[in-house]
C-alpha cells in the first residue's frame, strides 16, 4: 500500500529542551496509526507539527509524497479533532459541520448534500438545528469528527478525543471510532496516553517516550514481543523484576528468586512477566516451563480481571497472577501454596 504520511528524521527543539528527537516513521493509506505515550512525551508536539501549527526544527513531513515545508495549517490536506473538541459554541450542529465547506466556496446544494451524508454516517440525523452546547459528550464527539471528516482529509489527526468522556462511553466510542474508520477508509493518526484505546483501535502503534519512538508495531506484537524495556513495562499489566546477578544458567532477582536460563548468553538487567502468562498447576511434562511454588497473600477480585497477589516461595519477590474466574480454581484461598509455571518465551529480559 502507498505511504500517505512520511516523517523523516523529525526533531523539535524548544528553548531549553527537545520535545521530539529524530522521529522517523511512515503511515500507510487507510491505516489506523496510534502514537502512545504518557503526558509530556512529545506526542502532542508531533501531532501539531503534522497539522502545521508548529514548525519542525529539523526533518520533514511528507503527505502524499509532497513536502509540507512552509505550508500553513489551512492549506494542508489534514484535519484535526482537538482534545477538547473545539466545537464552535455559537453555531448549531449544521453550522459547525458546514464551516469548513463554506470556506471552500462550495455550492449550497453540495454543502447540504455532504452534511446530510456525514450526519447519516455518524448517526446524528435530525440534529442539524441543535446547539452544540445541548449535546451529550458522545454526540459532541461525533460532531467534531464529522466536522473534520466532511473536509475529506488525506489524514485525520485525533488528539486524545476520548479523554473527556466517562469510562463506559469511552469503551463504546472506541469500538465506534474503529468501525467508522474501517467504513470510510480515511487514514487516522491517533494520539493517546490510554494504551487500551491504542491497542483496541490501531493497526499500528508507536510507543513514544522522551521524544523518541521506542517501537512501532502491531498492537499484538507490542504486547507479545516488546523490543525495549520501556515498552514491556508501559504496555499492559506486568510483573517487573530487577536482576541481581546472572549466574551459571540462571537469573537471580533482587529478591532472591532464581529462574533457570540454560541458553542465556547476554546479561539482562530486568525481566518482565505478564500476570496472564502464568500457568496454574502446570503439568510436569510440558517442556520449557519454569516451575515454582508461590504462597497466596490476597485475592484481588475484579471480575474477569481478578488477580492473585502472591509471594514466591524461598524469596521475597511478589507476583501478580491472573486468576481465571472458572470453577477449576474455585478452591483457591488465601494462605495456600500453589504450583505455578511460566513458559520461558513469556519471560522478557532486557
Amino acid at each position, binding site marked *: 500500500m502507498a505511504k500517505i504520511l512520511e516523517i523523516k528524521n523529525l526533531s523539535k527543539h524548544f528553548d531549553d529542551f527537545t520535545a521530539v528527537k529524530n522521529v522517523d516513521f511512515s503511515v500507510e493509506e487507510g491505516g489506523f496509526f496510534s502514537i502512545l505515550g504518557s503526558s509530556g512525551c512529545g506526542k502532542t508536539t508531533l501531532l501539531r507539527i503534522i497539522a502545521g*501549527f508548529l514548525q519542525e526544527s529539523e526533518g520533514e513531513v511528507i503527505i502524499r509524497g509532497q513536502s509540507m515545508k512552509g505550508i500553513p*495549517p*489551512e492549506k494542508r490536506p489534514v*484535519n484535526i479533532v482537538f482534545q*477538547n473538541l*473545539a466545537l*464552535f459554541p*455559537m453555531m448549531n450542529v449544521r453550522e459547525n459541520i458546514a*464551516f469548513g465547506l463554506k*470556506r471552500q466556496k462550495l455550492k449550497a446544494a453540495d454543502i447540504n448534500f455532504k452534511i446530510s451524508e456525514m450526519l447519516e454516517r455518524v448517526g446524528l440525523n435530525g440534529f442539524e438545528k441543535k446547539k452544540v452546547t445541548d449535546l451529550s459528550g458522545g454526540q459532541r464527539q461525533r460532531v467534531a469528527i464529522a466536522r473534520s471528516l466532511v473536509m475529506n482529509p488525506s489524514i485525520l489527526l485525533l488528539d486524545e478525543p476520548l479523554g473527556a468522556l466517562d469510562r463506559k462511553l469511552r469503551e463504546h466510542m472506541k469500538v465506534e471510532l474503529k468501525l467508522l474508520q474501517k467504513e470510510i477508509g480515511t487514514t487516522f493518526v491517533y494520539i493517546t496516553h490510554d494504551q487500551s484505546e491504542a491497542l483496541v483501535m490501531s493497526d499500528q502503534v508507536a510507543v513514544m517516550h522522551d521524544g523518541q519512538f521506542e517501537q512501532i508495531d502491531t498492537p499484538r506484537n507490542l504486547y507479545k514481543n516488546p523490543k525495549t524495556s520501556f515498552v514491556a513495562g508501559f504496555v499492559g499489566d506486568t510483573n517487573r523484576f530487577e536482576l541481581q546477578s546472572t549466574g551459571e544458567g540462571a537469573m537471580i532477582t533482587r529478591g532472591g528468586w532464581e529462574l533457570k536460563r540454560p541458553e542465556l548468553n547476554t546479561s539482562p538487567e530486568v525481566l518482565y512477566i505478564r500476570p496472564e502468562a502464568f500457568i496454574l498447576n502446570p503439568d510436569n511434562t510440558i517442556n520449557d516451563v519454569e516451575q515454582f511454588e508461590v504462597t497466596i497473600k490476597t485475592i484481588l477480585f475484579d471480575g474477569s480481571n481478578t488477580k492473585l497477589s502472591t509471594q514466591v516461595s524461598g524469596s521475597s519477590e511478589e507476583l501478580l497472577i491472573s486468576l481465571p474466574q472458572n470453577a477449576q480454581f474455585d478452591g483457591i484461598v488465601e494462605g495456600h501454596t500453589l504450583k505455578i509455571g511460566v513458559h520461558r518465551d513469556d519471560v522478557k529480559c532486557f
Partner: protein
Amino acid sequence: MMKPQNEFNFTFYLLIVPVLLWLIFMIVIPHAELLISSFLVENDDGEMVVSFANYIEFFSQKIYWLTFVKTAAYSIGVTLLAFIIAFPIAFYLTKVTTRKNAAFLMVLLLIPLWVGELVTVYGWMVLLGDNGVINHFLMTIGIINEPLNMLYTNFSLVIGLLYMSMLFMVIPVMSTLQSLDDSLIEAACDLGASKWDIFTKIIIPYSMPGITSGAIIVFMLVIGDYLAPNLLGGKNSLWFTEQIYNSFLQTFNWNEGAAFGFLLLLLSSGIIWLALKVSGQKLEKVGT
C-alpha cells in the same frame, strides 16, 4: 426552635430588604416624582394642571428633537468608534501579550478613571486648544502656520466622549475573549479559514455578548454625559443633556426638564431595544 422553612424566609427577607430599599428610594420615588411633574403645566392663573404640553413641546419645537437626533446619532457613532478602538486593545491584552504585561497595561488603562472625568476633560482642553500642546508642537516643527481649530468642535467632543467611555467597552470584551479557547481559532484555521474568516466568523460572534454589553454601557454613558459636551463641544454642538440642564436651571421650567429627562430615558432605551433586535442579541445573555 425555628423550622427550616422559616429560617429560609428570614434570610430571604433579610437579603431582599436592601435591594428593595435601594430600588424604592433611589430609583422608583425620584422617577415617579419626575414622571408626575413632567405631566404638570402652569396655567395662566399660576395653577398646576395636568397636561401633555411638555411632551408636545419637545416634538413641536424643531430645536429640541433635532438636538436629540444629533445626540443619539453621535452617541451611536462614538459607540462604534469605541468598539473599533477597544477591540484590538482587548484582543492584545487577552490573547497576544503575557498575563503579567496585561495586568500592568490594564492598570495604565484604568488611570484616567482614578483622575475623574472633569480633570481629563480639562486635560484634553489643554492638549487641543488653539495655544495648546498639539498646535504648539505642530507649529514648532513647521507642519502648520496657523493653529488648527480643534477645541469646541465636534472633533473635540467626540474625543472627550470616547476617552471617557472607551474603557467600559474594553473590560466586557476582554472578559468574553478570556473565555475564548485558543483551540477554537486553531480549529477554524485547520478547517481552511483565512485570518479574516476567523475574525468575522469566530472571534466577533463569540465575543458578541461582551460587545453588546460594552456597547450598551458606552451608549448610555455617552448619551447621558454632560461634562464633555459642555466643556469640549462648544456652542455648536448642543447635547440633549444640555437642553435638560437649560430647562431646569436657566428657564427654571422643572416640568419641561422632567419631561425631557423622561424622553431621554425612553428614547435611548428604545434605541438599545432596536439595536438588540437588529443584532439578534438577547438582553439576558448579555455579559455572560
